[in-house]
């Protein structure tokens, strides 16, 4: 009997199946009934309503774009605003013969070939039916009038007042605030349904800088209205309306006057300046010179304009303070000194004898100090910093070894993204054994450590990273993420502490002391830049080699082309007793960090601490010995061209 249990009961299964089929068929029948009822309801009962609605689809839904949030500097000065601008658009579905309409419009208003080209490009992008496609922006009063007179002849042509982004400060904030531009086809393709909805009616999107990073806050929420239109597509009546919510405003740490001071201090030389408020990490100024006018990009830059910006040798589009990575040179010496103190490889009393070169023990390899003949018989840490003695740091770095250097530097954010609130930042390099194995496929050599000790070799840092390093020094081991925005949509964005590490107070004092000596000491390299100040400051110069110098070759700056000259670097903070501001400066191909970049840093500190702001038009200050280097190229005016708003296309 038990064996039969293992046979399936075929008849029972069949019975069950029949019963289930009966149930399922009833369910299907019921659901089909629902469907039939639904279609009957739509097509017979509500037929009249829908037939009317479908009649040329007179009633339809229009998105109402929100106004984009405004951007202010720390004193409430507008950096990005929205200006009304009259736009001429064409609704393809209503326009009849498109070519004919465009030709006729051309007789009324100025339509350039590029306008037409852009119009066709936009028209072929994905869009809602009956959505107007813009043809001309910034219509003048006369053009408005001539269009209005001929309105009856213009089927499918619309004129509407749109808000267009405007940057009143021009090129001053191009690299920080950034710009908005038309939503590109690639961006449109990447939109998900939600984004497609949020951007309906909105034509622009943040492309760079804060405009891009804070896009979500600035955009706002789209509204919509149900409108009744006549056969020409003109709105007759608004039936129902949901208002858009305007985007949130941004209030920055950046200060227009500080930006102007930075540009004025660079006096047309290529370079970058970053100033950070030590306690908050707020960025007070960040400029990259030369710059460009962001207003050119708002409604679509012309091909010729873009090419001249893009192909300029001065690279105005290139954001030097986050994308430019340079060897930091001697600017990192104070940090290396601190590492030596902290790890016990040196102390304030230890001194070395400097013959003007360093020989890697047991090898023939020799590194020559920048000062021929050396800095004397007894160089201690303070003197090594204030006179920028290479030999001292070569010796120190060699004894500490790569692993300690690499670990200590990462506390200062070297080789890491600063995570500042604008996109496209470069990481730079703060090397380690693993890095070299990964990037070069080679082992780490002692000689690499020597180069690294004075910020040469593989080391690359952006001016923003140098400013963060300096602020971290000034804040005695507290590294705060640099931030441009202080309040977004009314909400205070609290500073973010990235790292906090402990070093004995006496060691900090020693480094501060050395850096103060740079500015105020009798033999300090930047004593000229520190002259006549009524507060005490700390600083360190640096020189970044652009072209490597082979062993034994003599350094001859005159022979090098202008673009192969060394970059001048300077980092500093002040006041010494209670640091408020940290500054990093790079002047490209200017040589001499102390003489060229130092005064720029000083002007930034004078501006912030003493209110001595400069205006870009103002002639150069007089306190520095000016040292006009013969043959320096004047900055090309290309990027500073101001386009009057009437001419934007």
């Amino acid at each position, binding site marked *: 009997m038990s064996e039969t249990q293992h046979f399936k009961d075929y008849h029972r299964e069949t019975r069950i199946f029949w019963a289930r089929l009966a149930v399922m068929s009833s369910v299907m029948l019921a659901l089909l009934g629902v469907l039939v009822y639904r*279609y009957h309801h739509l097509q017979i009962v509500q037929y009249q309503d829908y037939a009317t609605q479908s009649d040329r689809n007179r009633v339809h839904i229009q998105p109402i774009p929100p106004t984009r949030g405004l951007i202010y500097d720390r004193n409430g000065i507008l950096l990005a605003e929205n200006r009304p601008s009259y736009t001429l658009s064409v609704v393809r579905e209503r326009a009849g013969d498109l070519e004919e309409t465009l030709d006729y419009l051309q007789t009324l208003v100025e339509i350039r070939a590029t306008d037409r080209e852009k119009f066709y490009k936009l028209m072929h992008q994905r869009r809602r039916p009956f959505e107007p496609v813009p043809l001309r922006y910034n219509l003048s009063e006369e053009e408005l009038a001539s269009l209005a007179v001929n309105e009856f002849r213009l089927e499918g042509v619309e004129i509407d007042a749109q808000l267009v982004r405007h940057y009143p400060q021009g090129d001053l904030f191009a690299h920080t605030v950034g710009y908005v531009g038309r939503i590109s086809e690639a961006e449109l393709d990447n939109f998900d349904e939600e984004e497609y909805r949020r951007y309906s009616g909105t034509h622009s999107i943040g492309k760079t800088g804060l405009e891009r990073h804070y896009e979500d806050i600035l955009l706002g929420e789209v509204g919509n209205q149900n409108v009744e239109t006549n056969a020409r597509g003109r709105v007759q009546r608004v039936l129902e309306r949901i208002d858009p919510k305007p985007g949130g405003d941004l209030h920055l740490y950046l200060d227009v006057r500080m930006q102007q001071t930075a540009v004025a201090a660079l006096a047309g030389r290529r370079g970058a300046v970053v100033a950070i408020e030590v306690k908050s990490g707020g960025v007070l100024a960040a400029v990259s010179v030369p710059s460009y006018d962001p207003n050119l990009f708002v409604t679509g830059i012309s091909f010729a304009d873009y090419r001249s910006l893009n192909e300029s040798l001065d690279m105005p589009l290139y954001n030097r303070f986050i994308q430019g990575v340079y060897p930091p040179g001697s600017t990192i010496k104070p940090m290396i000194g601190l590492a030596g103190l902290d790890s016990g490889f040196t102390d304030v009393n230890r001194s070395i004898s400097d013959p003007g070169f360093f020989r890697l023990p047991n090898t023939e390899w020799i590194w020559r100090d920048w000062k021929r003949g050396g800095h004397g018989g007894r160089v201690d840490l303070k003197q090594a910093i204030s006179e920028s003695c290479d030999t001292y740091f070569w010796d120190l770095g060699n004894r500490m070894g790569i692993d300690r250097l690499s670990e200590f530097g990462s506390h200062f954010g070297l080789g890491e993204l600063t995570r500042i609130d604008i996109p496209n930042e470069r990481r730079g390099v703060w090397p380690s054994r693993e890095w070299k194995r990964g990037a070069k496929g080679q082992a780490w050599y002692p000689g690499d450590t020597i180069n690294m000790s004075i910020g040469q070799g593989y080391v690359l840092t952006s001016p923003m990273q140098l400013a963060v390093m300096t602020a971290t020094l000034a804040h005695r081991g507290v590294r705060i993420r640099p931030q441009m925005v202080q309040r977004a949509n009314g909400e205070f964005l609290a500073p973010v502490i990235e790292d906090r590490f402990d070093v004995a107070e006496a060691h900090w004092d020693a480094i501060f002391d050395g850096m103060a000596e740079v500015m105020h000491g009798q033999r300090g390299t930047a004593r000229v830049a520190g002259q006549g100040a009524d507060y005490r400051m700390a600083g360190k110069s640096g020189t970044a080699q652009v072209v490597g110098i082979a062993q034994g070759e003599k350094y001859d700056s005159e022979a090098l082309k202008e673009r192969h000259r060394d970059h001048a670097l300077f980092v500093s903070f002040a006041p010494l007793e209670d640091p408020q501001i940290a500054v990093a400066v790079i002047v490209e191909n200017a040589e001499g960090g102390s003489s060229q970049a130092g005064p720029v840093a000083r002007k930034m500190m004078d501006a912030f601490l003493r209110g001595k702001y400069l205006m870009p038009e103002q002639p150069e200050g007089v306190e520095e010995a000016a040292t006009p280097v013969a043959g320096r190229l004047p900055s090309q005016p290309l990027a500073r061209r101001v386009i009057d708003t009437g001419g934007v296309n």
Partner: protein
Amino acid sequence: MSGQDFLRRLPRTGFGLGRREALQQRLHVDFLLLFLLLALTVVGMSVLYSASGESMVTMRRQGTFFLIAFTAMFAVAQVPVDFMRRMAPWAYVGGVILLILVLVVGVGAKGAQRWLSIGGFRFQPSEIMKLAMPVMIAAYLSKRFLPPGLKHVFFTLLLIAIPTALIIDQPDLGTSILVAASGIVVLFFAGLRWGYIVLAVIIFTASLWPIWHFMLHDYQRQRVLTLLNPEADRLGAGWNIIQSKTAIGSGGLSGKGWLEGTQSRLDFLPEGHTDFIIAVMAEEFGLLGVLMLLGVYILVIMRGMMIALNAQDSFGRLLAASITTTFFVYVFVNMGMVSGLLPVVGVPLPLISQGGTAIVTLMAGFGILMAIATERKRVMTPQKK
């Protein structure tokens, strides 16, 4: 009695077939089903011609896909049913692996990642699952005692849940519903006890409240609400529904005529040639056209259920019933969502909507039905030991 008489009295055992039936069995084709499918193809092509704005490119593409699809159907119909049963676990496991691959290395667009790209050729592994799932579940359950015990029910649900979750993750809600339904339906036809069904419904309903209040973020809740009531979001999902309802409603009893639909012709109706094609049909052919299309669908479903009833064993029966019911789910969900009854979840109207792979999969499914229908009948004389 002579042997001849004996044979004649057993008309369904494979020896005394009429000429037509013999031909069907040799070709492995069910003529009635084939005729209905061809009718749907003709209707589909003519509606698509209008919906695509009389685009010959679209017609050629769709025609090619139909050719491939019918070829696939004939090919699948030749496969012995028992072989399908034995291959089921391999197809299922292979499908799951491909679905995992999609999540890892898949390509996609507009926030969804659904395709695998092999040498420039793209395909959707979830399509494979649409067939592998019912075959697998039917193969598994047909070997157990039916109705299935709690252990087997549990294991079956697990088999259903894994691919469903993977497809939801892509995300592709429409396909995941179809895949899950094709598995659950097998369970239902296998005789899942009513007690379990009631229990499942109670647990599901009871869990909605805590999930809604504790597990979902605000934006997720908003998304569900939009899904349930698209008309609240007039620029997003609501736009399609408002336009498709207008198209359907303005069709009236007899429609505006072929190629005369203003909603679709004026580009008001987005996706008019894919998921929302029934709106074009309703606008141009009216309620009568919709009813006639429904009629053909009902005939297909009836034929499928007859094949299930006449199948030789549990496996064929369950599989045929599942494929047929899933076909119904396609029709109901699509027509329901376009008319605003159901949330918009992206299910095409079978054999009418444009879309290559979905049509091939559907036809391969009908190939399975035909294989079951024309399986060589074995003489089963129940023997008791």
